[in-house]
């Protein structure tokens, strides 16, 4: 039943695709893309292109998560810090990553650190913003309780701030996951000669459209897989929240 619900809509969408696909050069049908998928990705490409990309993605995501939460907590807690840093952060947030890349290259070179940094530069925002808002919205009575019972410093952070803001932090982390995949592709637009994103772009430039779509398909599947893993994590971290009925997800 659960599996059925999981595939019902995708199946319907594939049917629609079947109906409209193949009519133009840029939108091949599902069969063609499926064939290209098998031919393209069930090969050494998986090792050469997909795995390194995935590694960078995870590294960038982890750094972004730590950075977003690490910055978000103090910014959320201190109004003055928030007022000071917000314009600067908003400034960088509004700069398109492709434009930011040259600057990042100046600082981090053109190899893996640069690509990881590009991923970080995009992923960090949803985590940061959600952390800030989550921390700002912490329950006052709980905060007072902490103050009364001398729950301070690291303990307060660990046992109150992070846990209390965790529903919103998880929202940010979930957002960041798919943004990370997008940024992985963008980062491979620069100084690359391999990688999943690069391969898709190369297919696009070389007008191998079915192959390109198969790459996009792989991106989607990747996102789906990672989000299923993420849901596991979330269920565990937010068990109290779902249990208390506050999230009838």
């Amino acid at each position, binding site marked *: 039943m659960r599996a059925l619900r999981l595939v019902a809509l995708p199946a319907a969408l594939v049917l629609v695709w079947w109906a409209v696909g193949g009519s133009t050069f*840029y939108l091949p049908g599902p069969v063609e893309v499926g064939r290209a998928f098998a031919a393209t990705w069930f090969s050494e490409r998986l090792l050469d292109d997909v795995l390194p990309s995935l590694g960078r993605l995870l590294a960038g995501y982890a750094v972004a998560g730590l950075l977003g939460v690490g910055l978000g907590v103090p910014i959320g807690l201190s109004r003055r810090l928030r007022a000071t840093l917000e314009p600067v952060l908003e400034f960088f947030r509004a700069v398109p990553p492709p434009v930011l*890349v040259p600057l990042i290259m100046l600082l981090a070179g053109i190899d893996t650190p640069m690509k990881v940094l590009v991923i970080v530069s995009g992923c960090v925002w949803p985590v940061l913003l959600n952390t800030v808002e989550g921390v700002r919205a912490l329950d006052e009575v709980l905060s007072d309780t902490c103050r009364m019972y001398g729950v301070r410093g690291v303990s307060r952070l660990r046992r109150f701030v992070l846990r209390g803001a965790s529903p919103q932090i998880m929202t940010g982390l979930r957002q960041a996951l798919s943004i990370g995949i997008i940024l992985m592709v963008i980062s491979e637009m620069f*100084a*690359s*000669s391999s990688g999943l994103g690069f391969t898709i772009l190369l297919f696009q*430039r070389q*007008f191998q459209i079915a192959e390109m779509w198969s790459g996009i398909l792989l991106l989607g599947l990747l996102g789906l897989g990672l989000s299923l893993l993420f849901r596991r994590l979330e269920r565990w971290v937010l068990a109290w929240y779902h249990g208390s009925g506050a999230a009838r997800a």
Partner: protein
Amino acid sequence: GGTEPGTRAAGTDKVNAGVIAIVDTAPIHLGKAKGFFTEQGIDLTITPVQGGAASISGAVGGQFQFAFANTTSLLTARQQGLDVKVVANGVSSTGQQGKDFSAVLVEPGSPIRSPKDLAGRKISVNQLKNIGDTTVRASVRKAGGDPGGIEFVELPFPDAPAALKSGQVDAIWVVEPFVSQAISQGARPVAWNFADAAPDLTVAMYFTTSRTDPDLTRRFTAAMRRSLEYADGHPDEVREILKTYTKISPEVIAKIYLPKWPVEVNKASVQTIADLARADGVLKDRIDVSTLVP
């Protein structure tokens, strides 16, 4: 909304051309300014695009009636069965060592002294599997080196000099204005790859698709030929027009090497590129250039 581009309105055809805003495409801008297109009953809009792939998909998608793309991109498109047809020459190499608009540069202190030394090095090109790596390999091969071990990385031209300077790559392939800029800042050219690849190499061309009205194509070709001819003969006006559609600083404009703009496509050089690309594995099959360039 608005008037559909490509339809004849009040005696003139509205035409949208997808063209990269670089030195190479000065003739079309100059020709537009000179009124060569209006003369042919063409109301020309020039849309800046990012690169060959964008202009080709734009043209195939029907957004542009005419567009500008480099030789390798067009060959690739052709091989994938896309309906593209060359209508005019775009830009050609000067063919002169030391005076071309495209070069491979190294840091002043680099041990790389000749194209042969590039073998086994890390070289940046703006796009992999395109004209850059094909011609750089040709340079190395011509100098007696083995291009097999070269590691190419993709770097947009503007970012290449910084990467060279910080030692991220051993050499960079760039075109004007970055050639002059980098040289003036100390970089040293080691290879003139366009000049090496083929005599009077046709680097890029204007093209259309079969859906464009043949009469319009004829008139566009005529206007384009006139523009190319004019540009080739009036380098000072070219340097002036560059100030309008690019943001290259005037000092640099005064210094850059201009390419050649012959009216005719050098089919032999295109065939050479096609064969080289095939040898390098960029193209899968042998392509008969005459199906692309009539």
